């Protein structure tokens, strides 16, 4: 019930294309869903986050879509660039529980 399942494991996208990463959760107590970007040798950096009271949040080229009834959420990267090549983690937490549960990660490679 504490798991967050992330797919795909890896993704190759052409420059200018759309990258889509999906996550699913089971624990309905989760109420905060951040996405992190991690480059090799670095710690994860917060990219964008959403709460379940909204269905979509957009920041620049990054959009989170949230489906509360299906307990699924996804990250869309529009106009993907080679500099976006990194590992992306979805995560979930609930404000009463303190800890954050991470997905297994998606390795994105954007071809120039």
């Amino acid at each position, binding site marked *: 019930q504490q798991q967050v399942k*992330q797919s795909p494991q890896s993704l190759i996208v052409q420059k200018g294309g759309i990258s889509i990463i999906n996550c699913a959760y089971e624990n309905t107590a989760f109420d905060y869903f*951040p996405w*992190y970007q991690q480059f090799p*040798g*670095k*710690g*994860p*950096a*917060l990219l964008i*986050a959403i709460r379940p009271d909204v269905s979509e949040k957009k920041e620049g080229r990054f959009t989170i879509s949230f489906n509360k009834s299906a307990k699924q959420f996804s990250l869309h990267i529009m106009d993907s660039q080679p500099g976006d090549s990194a590992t992306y*983690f979805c*995560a979930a*937490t609930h*404000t*009463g*529980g*303190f*800890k*954050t*549960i*991470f*997905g*297994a*990660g998606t390795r994105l490679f954007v071809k120039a």
Partner: protein
Amino acid sequence: DAGVTQSPTHLIKTRGQQVTLRCSPKSGHDTVSWYQQALGQGPQFIFQYYEEEERQRGNFPDRFSGHQFPNYSSELNVNALLLGDSALYLCASSLGPTDTQYFGPGTRLTVL
């Protein structure tokens, strides 16, 4: 504004030894969480410190212990090291236990 800092960057130990990792939170943050990230996996929550107390703990044995100092910095101690403890250890800080977490660059621990 300094972000989260961790030391050392890399560390090599042998089985059975003990190790101490250090973390300084982002300026203004009072909460520190520790995560273990094995190669190719998402970060796994170890524990969180707030007001110098361990607030919540993940599924890690008692060999993993920590401390938070009055200046909010924190230490992670691991006793009786095992080969399986080899990982990137990440520290994340936040303003309060339930706010957005910001990660440091991590300490790469190798156990031989």
